[in-house]
């Protein structure tokens, strides 16, 4: 056994995912993302390294975590735990000491086999429902070699695979993943590169090019657009997005994802400020106009999902 077994860092595996592709699925959330979308609802998947999160609703202020912290990075208040992220060395001792489930480590290092051991348990559900595995994140492209192995293993089991990607990565890596992707979920966050950079941290050039690459390979794609009030939901951007999507030959469906507050609590769990402030969540009806624009272009549109 000279060959080193490749490992990947994941946030978690979500069984019974019913909104991440056809049928009943399991979704593997990879850790690490090159984007920093302001509304990110999975901020614990942004950093590539392991980190500590806290769910303060479970905290009983017992102080067990503080006792074991070697860098004195923990404060316990009436609201629960706060961690000084500058001094925290993510040793994990606090999570180990916490018995209420408040503190936990996110980002364990696993092998493809480790993941398969879990997702295999639901194989009959996949078979009966035409479901399978979705790999998302985070951004799968960040750990492309590992994700390729994972997708390949899924195909060996005969499961349908979905690659959920923001598209920001090298074309070479993307191609590698596409070999074992039956369907791609592809995010288009803004058509104006400068604005894209402002709200996600990166320009959109690579993303748009990669979309064209997937189209040229004729792999079915769902375009997903997070609808963020005031950031990207203006008519001009929506029209431009629709036009771009129209140029692609492989778009089977457009999903409009109305802004929700899913990220708010999780930012708190990581002691990060929530960039969206107190912006209110949207209702499905709020994206009716955008829906109309896409439908006019002939797309099948779903709100949510």
């Amino acid at each position, binding site marked *: 056994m000279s060959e080193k077994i490749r490992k990947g860092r994941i946030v978690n595996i979500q069984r019974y995912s019913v909104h991440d592709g056809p049928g009943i699925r399991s979704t593997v959330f990879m850790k690490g993302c090159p984007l920093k979308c302001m509304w990110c609802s999975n901020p614990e998947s942004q950093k590539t390294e392991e980190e500590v999160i806290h769910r303060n609703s479970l905290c009983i202020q017992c102080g067990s975590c503080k006792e074991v912290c070697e860098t004195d990075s923990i404060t316990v208040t009436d609201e629960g735990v706060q961690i000084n992220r500058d001094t925290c060395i993510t040793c994990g001792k606090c999570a180990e000491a916490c018995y209420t489930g408040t503190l936990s480590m996110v980002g364990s290092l696993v092998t493809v086999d480790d993941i398969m051991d879990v997702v295999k348990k639901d194989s009959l559900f996949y078979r*009966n*429902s035409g479901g399978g595995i979705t790999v998302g994140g985070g951004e799968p492209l960040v750990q492309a070699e590992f994700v390729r192995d994972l997708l390949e293993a899924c195909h060996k089991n005969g499961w349908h695979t979905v690659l959920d990607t923001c598209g920001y990565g090298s074309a070479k890596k993307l191609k590698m993943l596409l070999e074992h992707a039956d369907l791609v979920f592809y995010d288009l966050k803004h058509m104006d590169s400068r604005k894209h950079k402002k709200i996600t941290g990166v320009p959109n050039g690579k993303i748009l090019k990669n979309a064209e690459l997937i189209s040229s390979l004729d792999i079915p794609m769902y375009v997903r657009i997070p609808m963020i009030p005031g950031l990207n939901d203006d008519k001009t951007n929506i029209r431009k997005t629709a036009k771009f999507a129209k140029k692609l030959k492989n778009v089977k469906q457009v999903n409009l994802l109305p802004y929700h507050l899913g990220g708010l609590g999780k930012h708190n769990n990581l002691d990060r400020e929530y960039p969206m402030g107190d912006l209110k969540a949207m209702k499905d009806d709020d994206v009716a106009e955008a829906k109309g624009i896409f439908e006019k272009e002939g797309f099948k549109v779903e709100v949510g999902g």
Partner: protein
Amino acid sequence: MAGKMKYPISKRVARLKDAILSEPMSIVSDRSRIVTEYYRETDGEPVALRRAGAFKAFMEKMSIKIFDDELIVGGLTDRLRGCQFFPEYASQWLKSELETLSSRETEQRLIDDEDVEVLLEDIKYWKGRSLDEKAIALWKEQYGTRISDANEARAYIDFKGSLITRLHADYDKVLNKGLKGVIKETKAELKKLKIDVYEDLDKRYFLQAVIKSCEAVMILAKRYSSLAKKMAKQEKNKKRKKELEEIAAVCARVPANPAENFYEAVQSFWFTHLGILLEATASGVSPGRFDQYMYPFYQMDADKGITDDRARELMGCVWLKFIQINRARSLDLAQVSHGTMYQNVTVGGETAEGKVAVNKMSYLVLDVTEQVRLPQPTVSVRYNDRSPEDFILRACEVVSGGGGIPAFFMDKYAYSALPLFNIPLEDVRQWAPVGCIEAIIPTKSHGAFYWSFYSLGKCLELALHNGIDPQTGLKLGPKTGDSTKFKTYDDLFAAFKKQVIYLIETSKLANHSYHPLEASLVPVPFASGLLDDCIKNGKDLRDGGAKYNMFLSSNPRGHITTTNSLYALKKMVFDDKRITMKEMLEALAVNFKGKEKLRKQLEAIPKYGNDVDDVDQVASDLFQLCEKGARDLGPGPFGDTITTTNQGIGLHYVFGGALGATPDGRMANMPTADGSLSAYPGSDTRGPTALINSAAKIAVKPCLSSLLNVKIHPGSVKGLDGLRKLMQLIKTYSDLGGYLIQFNIVDTETLYDAKEHPEKYRDLTVRVAGFTAFWIDCAPGIQDELIARTQHEF
């Protein structure tokens, strides 16, 4: 709270529903008075004839009423939601509970002063004569305090003579031959009897009683016919006048004669069902395969142009009749039942010949269920892979509207379990769940389902305390040793096993004593005449007359809480040695007061329902222990194999209430997990596929029931795609060998709101265990537990 409906509810049915739900439930003295009078005058009459005589007197004299809008007539009383008192079964409790009847936590009942007077007088006669008192006296004589102690500590529960009879009567026979046909058949058997054979005398009394009780029900129908005729004469509204005339004509013909159209068939069905419920204070009397026996009559009329709306309206009227059925039960029984009557209607599956049984009536049943959306009747879908997909999807659509109905039962499981009881294939194909959920053969089985509920949680407490119940100090089990001296988990399990077997025996001694008592005190000739082969055998069903006597009579409860507790002990005390048994016992004794840290640690130990093999194995061992333990104690009173049933009713609440803190971190007196395969509320965190996998791993066979409740968020079943995913969950559970899966599809916010504003949710229904109940009928403890059950959506 009206959910969406594919076909709008008829205005008539909606009005009737509203009228019924606005009416408080009450107890009347009608039956008690008439039956007690009859008994006072008939000392010495053979019991079968005495029962039939009392029944006939009741049918002749009971007050009856036809309500506005009704098309189908006949009720337990002359009120929309009245119930009768059955003093022969249990009587004395009424006196002590009279004051609290209208204000208790569940099944509140009003009672008028004049009725109170009559009832209090009646129960004087019944003192020492009621079934429950006779049983208690018998136990005392034979076993000292063994049974009463177990009952007091809620290790076992005595149902105070409130019969739970699981059967599906032969409605088909009445629809096609009429009660006159049943009488004819009975007379032919009478002719065969010899007058010089001892047993034939009992048979003669029984068969005569069958005839008399059939006549009694025919009399009741005739009385409704006359009443309708009289009302028609006085009715000013022309439309209603015509309706009343039609009611008069229908009731003049059925159930005495064969039904000749759909209307007559529905009314004939109802009189038959009502007759059984008026004869005895049974619950669990199930219509069974309604779509199969009603379909020919629907077809008959469909050819003549009956519209589906009309068919649904007539069925809606009878669906609202089911909800009017209720009982006067003592508080401890009410806490178990939460208002339900376990009237189970089954649709789908296969025919006796192995054809797909889904027909137009199966769809109509689903339509009406969706329109009326009430806890009774409970509707069960028999699932198999040959079921038309649109039918299963329609059933998914109905259940996605909330209320937990229909439930999904798997043919695959039933087809492999029932043959273990030597039931031939053509009968197996006819199977249907009865009462809550037990698989039996309609029209041929008496699902003898007795007072043998025992608490597995209590068995664990006894194993931890050397046979002494720590809550009451009573000695309820054998001495199995000082648990602080146990060296291994196996030592603990061995002690636990002894306690389980001893308690199974206690409950068996108790419940089996009821069989001869029932046969000799309260036989049921009317119901028996409608169950194969009672007439042929000349025997009441309580006397073993049925073709199949299926002794669903060992009933463990608290499987999952006990599983989680055993596993927690295994991990914490024996494997990882994080604490000693002594420390554990101390923490349990003080209900974790000041030991919150330990409690959290215990809660964090893996629980059943998360697809964790080690825990699921403990559950599986437990199921097998209970099943084998009961079987090894020998056959039932009629020589039949005893089967263990693993279902629900509200016992997780009652047994949980008498149980101290448990090693899984559950606090004292909280309900245990519901049903038998449902996870402990809030503890299944890996979603329904993990829960289903856990459930499917448990070796339930040869038991004829198990129950898995899954709470799902409405968002997960939205649209056709969502319904398909629900169907795929059902199919996969069937493939994996599961028996029953049911869903509570209502969001937690709604339940919170309902707890706060019950008045807004008069018609909100929820799946509690093997049954559905009105939210407002659930005791506060059950409401909290329903809110806590994990909701699956991702």
